[in-house]
C-alpha cells in the first residue's frame, strides 16, 4: 500500500474505510487484490476437485466456491488495515469467527450437519462439515498472506531506506528489494513466484495420485476433467499476471517515492503486454489436444503412459515357447492400483517430473521474457536466483531458433531433392530425343553475342542435367575450367568457347558474324564431349588434364558438396537405360 499519513486531515485510525478508499493507485486498489482472489479461487476450485475424488462421500456444495472468493476478498483488503492500524489479536479472531460463521451455518443448514447441534465440537469432528469448512478457512488464510504482502509492498522507504531508494538501478532495486522487514526476508516478486510454483507442483502431485489410485472415480465423475483443467488454467493465468503486476507496482512505488516522472500509459502497456503473453501461453496449451496439453494433466499422463507402455511392451511369446519366469505381464490402459510394477511406477513418476518441469519451464520462460523485455541488458544485475527465468527464456528461445533452423534446412533439402528427382526424370528421356542433342531451342545467329550467350546457357543446362552444373560461387570462367577438368576432353574447345562467351556477355564489343561458324563448331565439340562423358564411350580422362582425378570423381562430389557433381556411374546407367 502506498504510504498515507492521513486522509482529508483526519487520522487514519478514525477513518479506516476512508483510508482504504484513498489508496492512490488503481493497481493497489483493484488489480492486485482481484488477482490474488482469483488465484485463491483457483486453488480452492482445484482442491474441491481433488477432494471430490479422494473423499467422494463428502458433499461439497456449489456455493462454497463463491463463498471462498468472498472470504478471500475480505481477507486481502482487511490485511492492510490490520497491519497498518496494529489491531489486537482479539479483534482479528473476532473477524475470523464472523467471516467463517455464515459458511458454517450454510453447511449446517445444507445437510452436512448429520444431526449434530449447531456449533457443537462434534460437528467440527464430522468430516462432512469439517472438510468443506477447512476449504473456506484455507481460502481466507491464504488470501490473508497476500494481503499482508500487499500492505508492505509499496513502502519502499521502509524496505530500502531513502538512501537506497535514491540509487540509480530502479528496476533492479524494485525487483530485489525486500517486500517487508521481517525475519522471513523474502523478495518482493520471489514470494509470488514461489507460491505459484509450489501450488502448481502440488497440483501435479495430486493429479498423479488420483490418476494412479482412483482412475475409476475419475471416469465416473462427470465434468471432473473440464473443471480441473479450468482451475489449473485460472491458477496459472492469475499467478503469472499477479507476478507481473506486483513487479510493476513496485516500480511505480519507487517512481513515486523518488519523484520520477513516468509516462502515464506505461502501466497500461505493461499490463496489456503481460496479459497478451499470458493469454498466448494459455491459448497454446488449451488448443493442444487433450492428451497433450499440460493443462489437461490427467489426459496427458494417460496418453504418455500408453505410449510408454507400447514402447516397453515385451514380445509376445510364441505358442509352445517357454514363457520366461520373470516376464512382466502385458497390460493396456492406465496402470491400475495394485497391479503396477515398480518399473511402471518409476517411469510414471519420471514422466510426471518431466511434464512438471516442462510446465514450470514455460512459466519461467514467460517470466523471463517479461523481465528481459523490461530490463533489457540490466537483467544481468539481478541476483543469481532471479536470473533463472531469464536463463529459461534464453534457453527456450535458442531451442526454438535451432528447431526452426533445422526445419528450414530440411525444407531446403527437400526442395533440392525434388529438383534432382525432376532433373533425373527428364534425363531418362534424353537419349530418345535426338533433336535436342543438336541445338535444341536454337536461336537465330543474327546477333552473334546473343547467340553465343544462348549456346553457353544451353551448354550449362546440358551439363547440369549430368550433374555438372556450376557451383554457387562459380564464375563462368571458373565453371568452364571446372567443367573442362571433369570432361577431360575438349578442354581447348571449352576454353575458347568460354572466351567468346565472356566477350559476348561482359563486353561492349560487337562480335562479327564470322565467329558464328567457329563458335558453332566449338559448341558441338563440347556437347559431343558431354555426350561422350554421359554415355561413357570415351576413355577415362587423363588426370593431368582434369581438375581432379577421374577416379576420385565420386569422392570429390561428396566432399565439395557443390553443384558440379560427378556421378559418372549413375550417368552411365541412365545412358544405357
Amino acid at each position, binding site marked *: 500500500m502506498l504510504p498515507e499519513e492521513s486522509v482529508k486531515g483526519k487520522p487514519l485510525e478514525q477513518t479506516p474505510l476512508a483510508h482504504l478508499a484513498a489508496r492512490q493507485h488503481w493497481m493497489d486498489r483493484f488489480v492486485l487484490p482481484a488477482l490474488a482472489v482469483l488465484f485463491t479461487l483457483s486453488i480452492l476450485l482445484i482442491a474441491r476437485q481433488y477432494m471430490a475424488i479422494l473423499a467422494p462421500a463428502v458433499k461439497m456444495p456449489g456455493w462454497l466456491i463463491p463463498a471462498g472468493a468472498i472470504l478471500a476478498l475480505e481477507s486481502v483488503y482487511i490485511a492492510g488495515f490490520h497491519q497498518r492500524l496494529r489491531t489486537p489479536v482479539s479483534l482479528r479472531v473476532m473477524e475470523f469467527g464472523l467471516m467463517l460463521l455464515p459458511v458454517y451455518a450454510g453447511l449446517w443448514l445444507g445437510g452436512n450437519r448429520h444431526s449434530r447441534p449447531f456449533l457443537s465440537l462434534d460437528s467440527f469432528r464430522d468430516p462432512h462439515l469439517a472438510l468443506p469448512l477447512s476449504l473456506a478457512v484455507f481460502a481466507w488464510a491464504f488470501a490473508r498472506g497476500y494481503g499482508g504482502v500487499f500492505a508492505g509492498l509499496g513502502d519502499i522507504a521502509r524496505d530500502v531506506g531513502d538512501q537506497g531508494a535514491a540509487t540509480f538501478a530502479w528496476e533492479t532495486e524494485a525487483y530485489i528489494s525486500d517486500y517487508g522487514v521481517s525475519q522471513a526476508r523474502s523478495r518482493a516478486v520471489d514470494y509470488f513466484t514461489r507460491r505459484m510454483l509450489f501450488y502448481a507442483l502440488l497440483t501435479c502431485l495430486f493429479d498423479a495420485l488420483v490418476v494412479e489410485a482412483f482412475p475409476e472415480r475419475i471416469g465416473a465423475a462427470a465434468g471432473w476433467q473440464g473443471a480441473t483443467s479450468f482451475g489449473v488454467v485460472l491458477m496459472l493465468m492469475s499467478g503469472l499476471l499477479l507476478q507481473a503486476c506486483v513487479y510493476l507496482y513496485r516500480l511505480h512505488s519507487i517512481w513515486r517515492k523518488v519523484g520520477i516522472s513516468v509516462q502515464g500509459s506505461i502501466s497500461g502497456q505493461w499490463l496489456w503486454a503481460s496479459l497478451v503473453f499470458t493469454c498466448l501461453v494459455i491459448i497454446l496449451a488449451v488448443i493442444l489436444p487433450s492428451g497433450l496439453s499440460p493443462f489437461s494433466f490427467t489426459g496427458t499422463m494417460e496418453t504418455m503412459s500408453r505410449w510408454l507402455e507400447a514402447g516397453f511392451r515385451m514380445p509376445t511369446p510364441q505358442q509352445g515357447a517357454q514363457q520366461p519366469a520373470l516376464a512382466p505381464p502385458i497390460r493396456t490402459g492406465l496402470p491400475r492400483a495394485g497391479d503396477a510394477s515398480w518399473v511402471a511406477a518409476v517411469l510414471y513418476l519420471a514422466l510426471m517430473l518431466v511434464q512438471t518441469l516442462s510446465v514450470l519451464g514455460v512459466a519461467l520462460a514467460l517470466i523471463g521474457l517479461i523481465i528481459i523485455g523490461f530490463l533489457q541488458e540490466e537483467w544481468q544485475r539481478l541476483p543469481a536466483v532471479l536470473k533463472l527465468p531469464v536463463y529459461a527464456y534464453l534457453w527456450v528461445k535458442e531451442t526454438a531458433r535451432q528447431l526452426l533452423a533445422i526445419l528450414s534446412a530440411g525444407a531446403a533439402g527437400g526442395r533440392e531433392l525434388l529438383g534432382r528427382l525432376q532433373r533425373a526424370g527428364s534425363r531418362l528421356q534424353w537419349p530418345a530425343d535426338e533433336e535436342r542433342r543438336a541445338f535444341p531451342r536454337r536461336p537465330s545467329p543474327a546477333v552473334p553475342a*546473343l547467340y553465343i*550467350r544462348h549456346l*553457353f*546457357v544451353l551448354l550449362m543446362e546440358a551439363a547440369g542435367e549430368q550433374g555438372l552444373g556450376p557451383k554457387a560461387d562459380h*564464375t*563462368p570462367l571458373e565453371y568452364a575450367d571446372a567443367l573442362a577438368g571433369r570432361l577431360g576432353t575438349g578442354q581447348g574447345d571449352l576454353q575458347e568457347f568460354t572466351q567468346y562467351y565472356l566477350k559476348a556477355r*561482359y*563486353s*561492349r*564489343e560487337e562480335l562479327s558474324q564470322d565467329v558464328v561458324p567457329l563458335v558453332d563448331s566449338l559448341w558441338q565439340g563440347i556437347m559431343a564431349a558431354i555426350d561422350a562423358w554421359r554415355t561413357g564411350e570415351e576413355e577415362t580422362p587423363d588426370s593431368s588434364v582434369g581438375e581432379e582425378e577421374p577416379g576420385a570423381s565420386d569422392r570429390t562430389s561428396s566432399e565439395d558438396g557443390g553443384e558440379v557433381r560427378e556421378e559418372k556411374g549413375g550417368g552411365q546407367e541412365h545412358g544405357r537405360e
Partner: protein
Amino acid sequence: MAENSGRSKEVDVQYISSICREISENINRVIVGKAGAVELLLVALLSEGHVLVEDVPGVGKTILARAAAASLGCSFSRVQCTPDLLPSDVTGVSVYDPVKGEFSFRPGPVISQIVLADEINRATPRTQSSLLECMAERQITVDGRTLKLPRPFLVIATQNPVEYEGTFPLPEAQLDRFFLRLRLGYPSEAEENTILERLQYDHPIEALEACTDPQTFTEMQNAVREVFVEDSVRDYIVRLTAATRRHPDVVLGASPRGSLALFRGGQSFAALRGRDYVLPDDIKHIAVSVLSHRLILKPESQLRGKAPEQVVQELLQTTPVKFEKLGEAT
C-alpha cells in the same frame, strides 16, 4: 624511361597492360616473389587509390613503395611517422624570410607524387588525419592558401601489425580511405636465397629506371575509367558489399566507398590483363584486399581467431555470380 612511355601513343587497355607489365617486372627486380602484391599495388595506383601495406618489419614494404615510385618516374618523398611528428611537418610550413620581409611557404613531404608514410600508426591521430585529409581531398591548405597536390598522387602507408606499444591504430573511418591493404608475408627459402644473392653488392633499387612518366600514367588512370562494367558484374559488386553488412561475424560492414573501390579496382585489374571489360573473376581476385580492412569484426569473432580476410573469403563462396538462364540471354 622506357621507350613506350611516349605521350603520343594512344592509351588503351593494351597499352596499359604492356606498361604495367614493364612496371611489374621492374619492381620484381627488387622485390622477390611478390608478383601478386605488386599486381595489386598497380591496381591501386591505376585506380588512384592509396595503399596500406601491413606486415612485419623487414619484408620489403618500404622497398616496394620506393620501387613503385622509381618505376613510375614520379617524385617520391618519405615521411617517417613518429609520435612527435606535427601536421605542419607533413604539409609544410610558412617561414618568415627576414631578407624579403615576407613569409614563404616551405612545402612538406606530402607535396610529392608518391608519398611513403612509413609506420603511419606511430604518428599521433592529429597528424594521421592531416595526412589522410590530403589523401582524400588531394589538396592542402596552409595559412589560408590552398595547394593542389600533383597528379598522380599516391600515398603508400606502412604499418607494423605486431607492435602496439607507442602506436595509434588507425580508426576504421581512416582505414576506409585506403583503397586496399596489402600483406607481403615472408618470402620462401628459395626467394630469400635469391634476395641474398641480389643484394650481395648493391641494392638493385638504385639502378631502377622509370617505365613511364607521370603524365602518361595519369592518362592511363583516366583510360582505366573507360573499362566497361556490365550490369550483372556491378550487381555482383553491390551484393558482395552488402553481404559484408549482414555477415554474423561483422559489426560494421564495408561502406559504399568499398563498393566504389571494388568497381574501380575491377576496372584496373581488367586493364592490367588487357581487357576493356570487367569479369566477375576480376572482382573476386581483388575483393579480399579491397574489402577486408573495411570490416570490423565482433569481439567474440576476433577472440575465436577469425580474420576479416576469412570473412571476405566466406562471402565470396556464398555470394553467387548470377548465371544466365534460358530466355534471359535471348
